[in-house]
């Protein structure tokens, strides 16, 4: 049916129309903010990706692996260039989302509903004034929520959306933007999500068993409410945000051999997250200043109850995290081609948990970044040096780790050899570390307070070729190519203590990663239709060099495919939009022993969406039908966590 639609769309003569097609931005490298290039998805492109959460969208970037435990409620974390989840900073409206407890941000929890753009930087962002935290991770994802824009004399923007589909999913949301004065506006975004999380999946072997089951206990109920205020001041602006998220979800657990239908995972988790954050930006001539603050409170309750699932151990734990954060960043343009930036951040984290023998850790982090950049027509250079001071405290004497000072540098070079600026060469070097998380250090029985930070070193060379045409079929062609070598030292890994149920954390890993990221994007105009195409390809050889005595020395690290890629095609035709997205993840291994027992098959999914806009006077309606995994491929991203087969989503939006 979808194919038929596609064919119809392609082959039916278009209605006689002279209307100008709206310009759409391809997912492509943004013009460099300063020096460092990035991959970004924004606006319409982002909206059309059949993506429910940020995690679904990020899969289309090159160099990225998403670990996905399946379903809407399953944990989804990002790993950039195989350095590990905890090396990726995730920023929401410019301020980092923290999780001092385990360093993981569940990108499945962040909805795309009110996001304007998602951007991935390898290395670090390079904007005019940035906080010290912007220098402090090996790579970073920036989620930018929509800033109110009012056209003409409008004072109110309203958008109401109702989405629903497979797995009993209901997802209403509302966005209300209000102009409160000449220079102040507000935005209220609220969203509710419910899904049963039930989906059929099949496990089969050639000439062997073939079984189909239904994923149980994967239900999610989540509410998100966000209130933002945005203001302009002379030569500057400010913004303040309040964010509230409340959810309950079941854990479907690993799908392992069981007597069918006899035992059901009943583990549940409740999350309540709140944060408020704000920033102020102001220019005084050549001097730019940015001040930010954040306070966050995260509550997590985990329950595993043998009264519901007889096979389980009773676990009923509550974790409370708090974070306070202040940042002051300034930049001084000494000349138009030379600036110096200085930023200082302070962060305070606490973790409270009702665990046996818990030490109630807290952590102060002071970051200072000094950075300078030179910008000439054909050459741009940036160098930065970050100092990090970490001081942990614990309620019990002697339980806290020693304080730490670390200095980490970054150097970036950009070369634009020709005057037409079509071709750009770049190179960067970055050394950074991630602190052991509070769990790594202090989790009862497992934590190890003697852990050292985990360091990563990145070397990257690359090029971008970008060309635009005013007429003809091809309007835009963008090619990027990067090659890199990364090394992760003192990798923090869990190692068994004396039996299956007892593990501890150690600094015992050395990983070397060689990779190539490539992307090609193009825009075509074909009479009344226009199309955007983008393809990415990633090659990664990520090897474990931990133990030269091990028979698995040099093996590809778990879950990193040698080859992966994506393809996205978007076609606009009058008021119709068709989008096809394809993701490919090549063969990989589930353990560093690259043997048949650990082999994981490649998987690839195709998603289609078709949408149409309707104008109703001053109102606008938009309807979208999505079909995901149209070939019903049965696959796993993580061992024993089956992913959904073919599924549907219908989205209706009303815009005032």
């Amino acid at each position, binding site marked *: 049916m979808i*194919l038929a639609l596609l*064919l119809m769309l*392609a*082959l039916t003569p278009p209605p006689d129309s002279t209307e100008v097609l709206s310009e759409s931005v391809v997912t492509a490298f943004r013009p460099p903010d300063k020096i460092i290039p990035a991959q970004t998805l924004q606006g319409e492109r982002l909206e059309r990706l059949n993506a429910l959460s940020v995690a679904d969208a990020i899969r289309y970037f090159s160099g990225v692996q998403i670990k996905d435990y399946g379903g809407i409620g399953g944990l989804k974390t990002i790993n950039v260039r195989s350095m590990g989840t905890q090396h990726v900073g995730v920023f929401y409206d410019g301020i980092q989302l923290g999780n001092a407890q385990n360093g993981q941000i569940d990108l499945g929890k962040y909805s795309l509903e009110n996001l304007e753009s998602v951007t991935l930087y390898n290395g670090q962002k390079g904007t005019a004034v940035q906080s010290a935290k912007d220098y402090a991770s090996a790579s970073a994802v920036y989620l930018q929520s929509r800033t109110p824009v009012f056209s003409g004399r409008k004072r109110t923007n309203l958008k109401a959306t109702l989405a629903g589909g497979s797995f009993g999913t209901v997802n209403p949301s509302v966005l209300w933007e209000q102009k409160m004065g000449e220079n102040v506006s507000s935005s209220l975004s609220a969203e509710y999500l419910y899904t049963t999380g039930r989906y059929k999946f099949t*496990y*089969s*072997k*050639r*000439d*062997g*068993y073939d*079984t189909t089951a239904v994923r149980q206990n994967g239900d999610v109920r989540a509410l998100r409410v966000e209130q933002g205020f945005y203001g302009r001041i002379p030569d500057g602006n400010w913004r303040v945000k309040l964010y509230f998220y409340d959810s309950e979800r079941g854990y479907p657990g690993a799908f*392992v*051999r*069981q*007597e*069918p239908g*006899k*035992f059901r995972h009943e583990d549940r988790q409740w999350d309540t997250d709140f944060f408020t954050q704000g920033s102020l930006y102001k220019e005084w001539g050549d001097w730019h200043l940015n001040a930010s603050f954040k306070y966050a409170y995260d509550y997590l309750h985990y329950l595993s*109850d*043998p009264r519901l699932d*007889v*096979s*389980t*151990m*009773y676990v*009923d734990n509550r974790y409370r995290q708090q974070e306070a954060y202040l940042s002051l960043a300034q930049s001084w343009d000494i000349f138009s081609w030379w600036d110096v930036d200085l930023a200082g951040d302070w962060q305070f984290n606490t973790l409270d948990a009702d665990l*046996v023998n818990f030490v109630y850790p807290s952590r102060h982090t002071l970051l200072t970044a000094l950075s300078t950049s030179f910008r000439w027509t054909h050459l741009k250079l940036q160098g930065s040096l970050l100092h990090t001071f970490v001081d942990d405290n614990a309620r019990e004497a002697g339980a806290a780790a020693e304080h730490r000072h670390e200095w980490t540098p970054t150097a970036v070079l950009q070369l634009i050899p020709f005057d037409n600026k079509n071709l750009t060469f770049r190179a960067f070097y970055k050394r950074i570390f991630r602190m052991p998380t509070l769990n790594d250090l202090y989790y009862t*029985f497992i934590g*190890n307070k003697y852990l050292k930070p985990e360091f990563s070193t990145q070397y990257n060379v690359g090029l971008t070729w970008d060309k635009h045409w005013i007429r003809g*079929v091809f309007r835009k062609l963008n090619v990027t190519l990067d090659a890199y070598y990364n090394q992760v030292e003192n990798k923090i890994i869990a*190692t*068994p*203590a*004396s039996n*299956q*149920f*007892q593990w*501890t954390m150690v600094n015992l890993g050395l990983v070397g990663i060689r990779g190539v990221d490539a992307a090609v994007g193009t825009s*075509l105009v*074909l009479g*009344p239709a226009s*199309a955007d195409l983008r393809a990415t390809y990633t090659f990664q050889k990520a090897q474990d060099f931990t133990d030269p005595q*091990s028979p*698995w020395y040099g093996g590809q690290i778990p879950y990193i495919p040698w080859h992966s890629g994506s*393809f996205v*095609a978007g076609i606009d035709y009058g008021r119709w939009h068709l989008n096809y997205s*394809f993701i490919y993840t090549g063969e990989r291994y*589930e*353990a*560093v022993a690259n043997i*048949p*027992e650990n082999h994981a*098959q*490649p998987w*690839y999914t*195709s998603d289609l969406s078709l949408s149409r806009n309707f104008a109703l006077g001053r109102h606008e309606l938009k309807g979208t039908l999505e079909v995901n995994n*149209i070939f019903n491929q049965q696959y796993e991203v993580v*061992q*024993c966590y089956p992913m959904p087969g073919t599924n549907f989503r219908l989205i209706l939006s009303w815009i005032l």
Partner: protein
Amino acid sequence: MKPMEPIRYLTCILVAALLFTGCREPEDIIPSTQTGVGSGDAGDIAGFFLLNEGNMGSNKCTLDYYDYATGIYVKNIYAERNPGVVQELGDVGNDLAIYGSKLWVVVNCSNLIEVMDAATARHIGQISIPNCRYIVFKDGYAYVSSYAGPVETDPNYRLGYVARIDTTTLQVKDTCVVGYQPEEMVIVGNKLYVANSGGYRVPDYDHTVSVIDLDSFKELGKIDVAPNLHRMELDAYGNIWVSSRGDYYDIKPMTFIIDTKYDAVVEQLDLLACSDMTLCGDSLYVYSNAWNNFTQTSDVNYAIVDVKTRQVLTRHFITDGTENWFQNPYGIAVNPNTHEIFVTDARDYITPGKVYCYSPEGRLKWSANTGDIPSRIVFTHTPLLR
């Protein structure tokens, strides 16, 4: 070029891409792998089965087989012999035994006991027991310890039980509630002894052995021993050797002796930490891999104890220095005919382990790669058919 031409092209490309992406071959059943390690004569013992636990949540419990006559070590025999069993052997194999003509595997996180024909390793049946741990046999019945007893008012205090299974019909006939998180068992005459660990109640461990009368299948009483009990071995003199894992902080792991004539602890062996043990004649082979949370280190030791004199005969039954190769010793067995010593190394638990075969004098004869977390070994008198 007419405006529609490129759209047609694009459509063709898209259709081709869709067709290409449509189908995927089903996965193959993982075949066994054979390694020649050297043959030998072990009298009426034809070979042994080795159980690999597989890491929790990975569904990678596997079974290996060594054959004395051919000297071939076969890794991962279950899947190819039982292609129809959904998800192979299961998740975390905890115990392995042969009783009569059947081979039994207690698959802890799959909540079932897999029963196979010992001559073919083919599936006969399965018995569902939640959180099942260990298995022993007597007079046509199998006895399985399980953590999943009735939940009283406070779910933190949940007793375990022992299930009695008819080995012919594979039906659970009865259950008997014991202490907290029961582990290994031994049967002496008409009494079953089970070591209660209380592992789910950290730091409030259980410290008792439950005694069950097999006639009434009721708990007769409890013997107070030490915290966090685990292993049990019965010697020829009616004494049960029982290991305590301690609390991983101040209370050290050690071994206790229960005299079944009095059902009381008669000796405490402070210097004999025990992760696992096996008896051959009067020689008790013990290894320990004891973790301490204060020092964040493991202390690995070996010993042979004479169960008659209760004296440690040696602290080194491996004499060629190869114990230094072990990362995490995890299982031990001694061939009663040849007195060869087998030690398994679970390495880092997430990659394949190894089994080492030593001569009675403690010199390495051969080693072979196993599945993940090799643990239990049982010797078989009937050679495994192809």
